[in-house]
């Protein structure tokens, strides 16, 4: 009998059954149900179901992050509706404007732990895989169903394995790895699948870098993604966790639908060209492309190491295009302030925003004008993503984005760091 993948083990656990195989359909009760500014719309659907109370108020987390602080009256009304709903239902975890981006906040708060399952009304819920958790995105009606019944059907996905070996060169990050993987695998290789990372290349990645990999596997169509949790993860969680947990690891003889291997030693900084995250080139192919705006932030790349990378590039220099920096959380922002990173960034000419999603999906805090080019540390660059269809978006690491802000053209950070 073949061994089990992480996804098979995690969904069996979440469904309370002894065993599960890819293809099984299970009724899963997640440890955490995550939503954000979309929670008012979800509460409207919930009311239409006829249910009176949410089943597990202690398992629900809501962050106000996607358009926060509210940019318009309509957005403010949306937030007000969510606060009232949380009060009425006794929902345990509401994170207010400025606390940070949902995927970052639930890790910082110890609300999702290794081996657990989080379902989120957000496609980047795959992010939670960095802790060795099963995270998958669902739609609004499904979140309403979860609130009302505590359960949702899930098909146990087939899995693919990505083995990373070696160590990244200076100025190269997990973002470059993720973009490189997307380029190599395309947008459908991971469709409906669990992407399970392995290999000694993972141990060289800092805790701040690791979430980039499962986060961006959403762009490859993954249902969830997984990194095997190690002592560094356990140490991170120790002061934060609110309950015990049992980490899950795939069996050595688990069956994978495909096996990919990537070596980190020789990887160069990568850039995704406008409109598709998998249209990726080495930065050296796009050097000199003018940019009007640089943006460092998002659930993908708004953590302390990302701001450190930007500060390393920008120390003693000035930007020559707009640079918007939005920390992924208040905790990140506070640490960056204490380390003097914000000082460095502001002195270089950066504009610092309230922790949250910022302009990533076109709501506020840095929407480009038609015709303007943005280079962003975000995960998506689809047409219209940042608010207007004719504003191309390049995606890259914080090193590349910061270096590009200095020159106003896409720049290889290794030139600046040298």
């Amino acid at each position: 009998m073949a061994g089990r993948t992480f996804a098979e083990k995690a969904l069996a656990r979440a469904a309370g059954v002894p065993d599960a195989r890819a293809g099984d359909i299970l009724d899963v009760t997640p440890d955490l149900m995550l939503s954000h500014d979309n929670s008012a719309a979800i509460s409207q659907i919930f009311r239409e179901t006829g249910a009176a109370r949410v089943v597990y108020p202690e398992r629900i987390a809501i962050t106000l992050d996607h358009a926060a602080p509210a940019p318009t009256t309509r957005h403010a009304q949306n937030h007000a509706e969510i606060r009232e709903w949380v009060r009425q239902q006794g929902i345990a975890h509401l994170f207010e404007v400025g606390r940070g981006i949902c995927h970052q906040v639930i890790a910082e708060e110890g609300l999702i732990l290794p081996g657990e399952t989080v379902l989120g009304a957000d496609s980047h819920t795959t992010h939670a895989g960095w802790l060795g958790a099963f995270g998958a995105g669902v739609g609004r009606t499904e979140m309403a169903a979860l609130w009302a019944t505590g359960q949702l059907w899930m098909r146990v996905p087939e899995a693919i394995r990505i083995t990373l070996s070696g160590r990244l060169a200076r100025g190269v990050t997990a973002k470059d790895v993720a973009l490189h993987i997307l380029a190599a695998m395309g947008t459908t290789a991971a469709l409906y699948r669990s992407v399970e990372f392995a290999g000694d290349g993972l141990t060289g990645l800092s805790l701040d870098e690791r979430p980039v990999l499962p986060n961006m596997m959403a762009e490859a169509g993954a249902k969830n993604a997984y990194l095997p949790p190690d002592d560094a993860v356990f140490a991170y969680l120790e002061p934060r966790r609110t309950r015990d947990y049992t980490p899950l690891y795939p069996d050595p003889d688990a069956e994978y639908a495909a096996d990919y291997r990537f070596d980190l030693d020789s990887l160069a900084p990568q850039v995704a060209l406008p409109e598709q995250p998998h249209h990726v080139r080495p930065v050296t192919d796009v050097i000199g492309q003018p940019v009007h705006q640089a943006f460092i932030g998002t659930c993908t790349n708004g953590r302390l190491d990302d701001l450190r990378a930007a500060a390393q590039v920008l120390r003693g220099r000035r930007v020559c295009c707009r640079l918007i920096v939005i920390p992924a959380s208040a905790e990140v922002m506070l640490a960056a302030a204490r380390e003097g990173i914000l000082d460095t960034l502001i002195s270089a000419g950066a504009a610092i925003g309230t922790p949250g999603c910022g302009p990533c999906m076109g709501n506020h805090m840095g929407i480009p004008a038609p015709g303007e080019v943005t280079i962003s540390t975000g995960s998506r660059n689809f047409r219209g993503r940042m608010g207007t269809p004719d504003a191309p978006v390049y995606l890259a690491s914080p090193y590349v984005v910061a270096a590009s802000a200095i020159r106003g053209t896409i720049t290889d950070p290794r030139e600046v760091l040298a």
Partner: protein
Amino acid sequence: MKTEHRCWVYGDNVNTDVIFPGRYTYTLREPHEIATHALEDLDPDFAPNVRPGDVIVAGANWGCGSSREQAVTALKFAGVALIIASSFARIYFRNCVNQGLLPIIIPGLNTQLRTGDTLIWDREAGTISAQGVTYPIPPLPPSVQAILDAGGLLPMLQRRFRQGRP
């Protein structure tokens, strides 16, 4: 019952940002208003010209990107009867089922058709016919089909809670 449908044909990797832009997601909630922005950033001709019963025929990975359910709502309330694609992004597929809009996987059909062509949907036979070729509609797992048969996840939940079950 056999019905004839006019097609809107699109390519691969059409994402939810162009089906229903993120800039509207926290301010628009009325389905018919959402529908007026359907495919706004991909095909500005779609929303003003779509007719009830029209179908989408697309390439691989239709609906990738954001989980936003309005990317299904927009098409459903614009009158789209079916979405056929070579493959679907997984959350989009679930959102279709949950809104009672049948997602059909027929690889490559989008390369055989052009916008304005028609196809025939035979519900009893479970087939789609276009350009003289008949394609079987792949069956769904019974628990998933049950959601579609109920008209979507919300009607299914309404039935459950109105019957006074937990």
